[in-house]
């Protein structure tokens, strides 16, 4: 007996085969190579996210040149504060040591960010002053050396 395939089924299976091929082709084109390498995401994205430039160089980079200031700092209560906490991002400065690409904040408001009296600041954690009453009209650094706050300048 001859095996009989109805003509409509032949046409349908051809259409189906074309559809499947197209689907697989599109799938291959649209899905990035590394998708699914580690999970349901593009594996290359991990390297992409590691690319951005570092702005904060880290304490170690500062110490290469400024060990003297670190020694000063270690002798007083600001010992645990990193250079970049006040001086801002230092990567550029560590590459080309110009004074222009590092911050030297000297405003009363800047010191007040930590030292202004606030009920939420624990008195044992940080020394606090009422910024509008404490030696108004003078900059903090006129009396206090920020690296050694209890060594008065006068």
């Amino acid at each position, binding site marked *: 007996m001859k095996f009989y395939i109805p003509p409509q089924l032949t046409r349908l299976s051809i259409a189906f085969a074309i559809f499947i091929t197209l689907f697989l082709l599109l799938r291959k084109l649209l899905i990035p190579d590394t998708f699914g390498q580690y999970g349901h995401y593009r594996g290359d994205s991990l390297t992409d996210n590691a690319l951005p430039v570092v702005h904060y160089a880290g304490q170690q980079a500062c110490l290469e040149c400024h060990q003297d200031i670190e020694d000063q700092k270690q002798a007083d209560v600001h010992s645990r504060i990193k250079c970049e906490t006040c001086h801002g991002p230092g990567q550029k400065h560590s590459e080309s040591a110009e004074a222009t690409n590092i911050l030297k904040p000297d405003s009363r408001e800047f010191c007040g960010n930590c030292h202004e009296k*606030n009920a939420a600041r624990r008195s044992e954690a940080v020394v606090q002053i009422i910024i509008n009453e404490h030696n108004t009209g003078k900059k903090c650094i006129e009396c206090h050396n920020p690296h050694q706050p209890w060594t008065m300048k006068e």
Partner: protein
Amino acid sequence: MDNERVKPSRRKFLKSAVTIAGAAIGYQWLKSGQYLLYGADPEDKNVPWYGIVIDIEKCIGCGSCAKSCKMENDVPKEPFFFRNWVEQYTVKNDGSVEITSPNGGIDGFKQTVPDEEIFKSFFVPKMCNHCYKSPCEQVCPVGATYLSPEGVVMVDDKYCIGCRYCVQACPYGCRFIHPERKVASKCTLCYHRLKKNLAPACMEVCPTGARMYGNLRDKNSEIVKFLKEHTTQVLRPNLNTGSKLYYNALGMEVK
């Protein structure tokens, strides 16, 4: 015997089926409580599994963390785009709570309630919780948000379609749509710094050491030691997000 409604063999089958189903559901339920064990499933010991600790008792609300994050990660300067920020909670004597966060704490805090009305006040620094069962990852329709092998939740900038679904899904409000790139943006725990063995910018600059990050898989790490010695809490534990940001001395007022 034949007129019994349920045959003994079928009864036996039903019994075992119910037992197995119950055990499976029970197992799933127990598994979902894993956040108590800090989500550290030590599958691959070569890769760290990062967790974060923030000590409320040490935070003095200087805003250095928020400021450094904006500088390190080129976050837009407008006061409504933040990858991390600080909030001041003030509980008044009448029991009401006032929460302020002027520019995320970057310009410092001004006490808004007079001393005599305050019952207590404290700062709460907020950032991405790097949940290991994160809602934002689950809702992403294209697989552009993911949990890296190190346990850091990140966004694939090239793959994100900017549909904002994840921004709504995050119960901690830690995501935003970048106004220029039109993709979701969030804390990456400074992944680019971690890869270079540098601490995340916010941890680097914190003057009081209120922030700490570390490997939860390493049972001798500083962070695991801290977690052993202190009673810590995550934000919204009821949502079971598997948050890996642990707060020490977190007040119940914190949302």
